[in-house]
């Protein structure tokens, strides 16, 4: 086949092109022809198709996402907002923190180990590209039913992949979530979060400016990995009946990535780069067009110079390749030698592949012939925008009407019945201990992990002298969001916010990973519109701007979409990590207080799922002002030594929180059901805006005064004591029995 050069494209305007196979719509193809004033070359078509895919262009979601900018609260801490590789937040003392959560759902279903591994690799490079040293990772995961055979295939591979890659990079895994629900059967969700730390002056952006500056590609050689992966893997639904699409899967090399991290940080230290971008989805197409588009526009690339692992690759394939562990830097000519020297020190291959030009075109050459000549903005930033139709699903009213009232779902009325349900909830895979999974992740490396697995949030010390630290929590409840997407998304934020505050940190900013079904389904699109609206509104009230994130659509098998699952990550800062609050009840005699109000709210609850396999009604109400007040009390209580343990109340309600805090601290508790409170509602309701705290007796007066003065309901419900969780007048259950129920559950399923 002859090379499809720009000249050739001009001379053969009517040549047939596989735009449909590459996932482009007819009007999109016409627009490309209009932009270029001719038909695109093969290489150009490849670039446009991949950059205009849903995954890269956010064409269905961006009309909704723009609310995150429009409704962004005033926040002095924001240093870099949406649109860069990741947002950056000021945390004081000259430090800046960057964090982001992203999805790698479809690749992880096809090849669980490599899919999950390269998910970690990708998010870590995003953080690195901002100029930060990556310091921790977290993984929110969703699987199909725990006892489904395919879960046994997918889960161990994904967990091993996250561990295999993250452990080898030397990044502590400090938390995350694992949720089982049959709605994720054919569409497990593998979201990955990374946190990075830098000094303010080290912030780097992805832009190519300064004509004459060199474009350096460094890291792994380019092979045929995941060619077309972006458009095929990330944007198309798995067809249950058709032939399996198995494009080349990307394989991760964490060792190469570790070298890339150390090498890049050394390069940053010597201030050698003017702009930098990691290579992720859409590989070089994305990196070159985004760098040029965000800069002055002009760039010339000699594609022949790209180091290849496979010499048979065509220029189109080189541009599309998703080989992992690569970065692209813009370097002033005088600094190129030193740049290459540092790469050599770390055994990292680095090659000058082109330069920034003073024009406004991205020009790519292959064996001296021009194969690409495009305005880069039209590739990277001016892709199509869709106003997808959306409408409240016809089934939504019936779902909400099916409330879990006492008449519909039988509630336990005796002590024995309450105990049985408590144990059922605690031993369900969703609430049970995840140690089989988290024990496969290194949580100690780097020596700065203050809070990690089993805690409400993960916390990392970032300065050993001053004890400044940051914490992160991720949450998302697909059941709540299915019942009411607007409220469900707000509840996800509220829970993550609460979890960060419960650890003693002040919530600062948000990153989100929005996992939904097909945007071509108006029901799904309504869920998406409602969830983004809810999240943007809530961020505005809580003062925590969305700094970035990712949208994953087409999470469905056939006509059946997953529960809408917005996963929300909240980042917080704590001035002194030695003041952090763990969840475990460790000191006998301390008093237990329930903060917040408890109402009869069981819609979407763990109890309704575990005991009745029921999903209906409305999720718990959200009161964001209350969440903020609760957060302030938890932070003040931690800072001033009034609280020794705190646990947010969420899935499974107070009962589950008590189980976890007792087991974590190795102490029992005597608990009294408050006057006039129904014991079942007391233990199983999932009303939001609540936490249980353990208060030293010497601090009780001061703590009560604080809550009273601020107007936060605080009810004394018991005391830390013995080795039994005793709900007085109802039942007692020994720690040994609780441990038995709570641990070993996941192991047993996978054995």
């Amino acid at each position, binding site marked *: 086949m002859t090379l499809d050069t720009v000249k050739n494209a001009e001379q053969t305007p009517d040549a047939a092109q596989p735009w449909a196979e590459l996932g482009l719509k007819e009007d999109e193809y016409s627009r490309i022809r209009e932009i270029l004033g001719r038909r695109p070359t093969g290489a150009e078509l490849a670039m446009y198709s991949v950059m205009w895919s849903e995954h890269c262009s956010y064409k269905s979601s961006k009309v909704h996402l723009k609310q995150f900018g429009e409704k962004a609260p005033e926040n002095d801490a924001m240093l870099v907002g949406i649109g860069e590789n990741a947002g950056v937040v000021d945390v004081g003392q000259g430090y800046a923190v960057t964090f982001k959560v992203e999805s790698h759902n479809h690749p992880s279903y096809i090849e669980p180990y490599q899919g999950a591994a390269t998910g970690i690799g990708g998010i870590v490079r995003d953080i690195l590209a901002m100029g930060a040293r990556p310091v921790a990772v977290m993984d929110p995961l969703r699987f199909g039913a725990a006892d489904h055979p395919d879960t046994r295939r997918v889960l161990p591979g994904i967990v091993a992949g996250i561990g295999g890659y993250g452990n080898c990079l030397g990044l502590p895994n400090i938390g995350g979530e694992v949720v089982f629900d049959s709605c994720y059967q054919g569409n497990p969700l593998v979201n990955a979060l990374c946190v990075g730390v830098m000094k303010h002056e080290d912030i780097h952006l992805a832009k190519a400016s300064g004509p004459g500056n060199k474009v350096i590609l460094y890291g792994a050689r380019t092979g045929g990995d995941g060619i077309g992966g972006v458009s095929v893997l990330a944007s198309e639904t798995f067809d249950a009946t058709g032939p399996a699409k198995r494009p080349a899967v990307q394989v991760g*090399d964490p060792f190469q990535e*570790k070298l890339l991290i150390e090498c890049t940080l050394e390069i940053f230290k010597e201030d050698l780069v003017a702009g930098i971008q990691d290579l992720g989805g859409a590989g070089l197409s994305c990196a070159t067009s985004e760098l040029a588009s965000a800069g002055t526009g002009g760039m010339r690339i000699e594609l022949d110079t790209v180091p290849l692992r496979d010499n048979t690759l065509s220029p189109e394939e080189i541009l599309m390749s998703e080989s992992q562990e690569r970065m692209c830097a813009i370097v002033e000519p005088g600094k190129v030698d030193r740049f290459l020297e540092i790469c050599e020190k770390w055994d990292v291959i680095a090659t000058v592949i082109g330069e920034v030009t003073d024009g406004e075109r991205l020009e790519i050459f292959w064996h001296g012939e021009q194969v690409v000549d495009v305005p880069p903005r039209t590739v990277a930033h001016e892709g199509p925008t869709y106003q997808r139709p959306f409408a409240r699903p016809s089934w939504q009213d019936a779902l909400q009407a099916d409330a879990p009232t006492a008449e519909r779902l039988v509630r336990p009325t005796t002590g024995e019945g309450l105990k049985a349900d408590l144990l059922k909830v605690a031993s369900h895979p969703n609430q049970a201990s995840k140690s089989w999974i*988290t024990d496969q992740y290194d949580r*100690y*490396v780097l020596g700065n992990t203050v809070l990690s697995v089993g805690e409400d949030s993960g916390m990392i*010390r970032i300065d050993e002298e001053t004890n400044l630290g940051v914490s992160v929590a991720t949450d998302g409840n697909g059941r709540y969001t299915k019942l009411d997407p607007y409220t469900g998304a707000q509840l996800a934020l509220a829970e993550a916010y609460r979890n960060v505050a419960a650890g003693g940190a002040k919530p600062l900013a948000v990153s989100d990973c929005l996992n939904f079904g097909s945007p071509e389904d108006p029901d799904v699109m309504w869920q998406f519109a409602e969830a983004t609206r809810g999240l943007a509104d809530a961020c505005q009230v809580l003062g925590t701007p969305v700094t970035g994130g990712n949208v994953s659509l087409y999470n469905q098998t056939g006509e059946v979409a997953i529960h809408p699952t917005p996963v929300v990550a909240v980042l917080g800062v704590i001035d002194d990590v030695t003041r952090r609050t763990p969840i475990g009840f460790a000191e006998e005699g301390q008093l237990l207080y329930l903060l917040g109000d408890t109402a009869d709210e069981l819609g979407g609850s763990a109890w309704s799922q575990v005991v009745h396999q029921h999903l209906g009604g409305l999720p718990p109400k959200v009161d964001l002002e209350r969440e903020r007040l609760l957060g302030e009390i938890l932070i003040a209580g931690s800072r001033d030594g009034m609280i020794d343990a705190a646990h947010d109340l969420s899935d499974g309600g107070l009962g589950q929180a008590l189980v976890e805090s007792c087991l974590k601290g190795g102490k029992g508790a005597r608990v009294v059901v408050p006057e006039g409170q129904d014991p079942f509602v007391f233990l199983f309701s999932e009303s939001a805006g609540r936490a249980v705290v353990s208060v030293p007796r010497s601090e009780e007066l001061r703590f009560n005064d604080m809550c009273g003065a601020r107007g936060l309901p605080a009810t004394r419900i018991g005391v830390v004591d013995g080795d039994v969780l005793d709900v007085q007048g109802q039942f007692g259950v020994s720690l040994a029995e609780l441990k038995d129920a709570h641990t070993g559950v996941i192991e047993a399923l996978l054995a």
Partner: protein
Amino acid sequence: MTTRVGVVTFPGSLDDRDAQRAVRLAGAEPVALWHRDKDLHQVDAVVLPGGFSYGDYLRCGAISRFSPVMETIIEQAKLGMPVLGICNGFQVLCESHLLPGALTRNDSLHFICRDQKLRIENAGTAWTRDYSAGQEIVVPLKNGEGRFVADEHVLDALEAEGRVVARYVDVNPNGSYRDIAGITNAAGNVVGLMPHPEHAVEPLTGPTTEGLGFFTSVLKQLVNA
């Protein structure tokens, strides 16, 4: 004069900064050593830290063992310089034949990270003088290939010569023969340990501070020497 303890960074070393911190908290001066550099920069002792040097792709420690810095370390270790290999460092020491046996894949086939109870069996090595024989400590353990194996007669000899430095207690996390967590050479200056004492040196970040003893031990050894 401050005692200088070198910590080697191989490509893929991960716990090098942690080992440096532990050295510092023990009161010595940590010195970063680079795998390509044969010069040990006048250090008095060396720690080979944990990690996945060269990705551990061939066998753990197999490629690092041939790095320039190891040439000098092997030479000096034979002359009595204290060397502690932690996790991947232990694997490098076995591949270098400074210690017998080998470390193979955990019997569970999974990477495991847990707080592990150990019993110090030999409190006479350069790295364990601050413990007492029979003392039990808890430090993090994290490995995918931590199962210590050796021939029966090697194991018998190790036991007979008191060269088992530490043993797993309560749980054998990886299937190590005879619950062995760490061993020493005959001279007691070279110690290999699978668990991570450098992650148990601060109450804030470790399960205990009981790992610090390895680093204070070598300090005392060198001051007294």
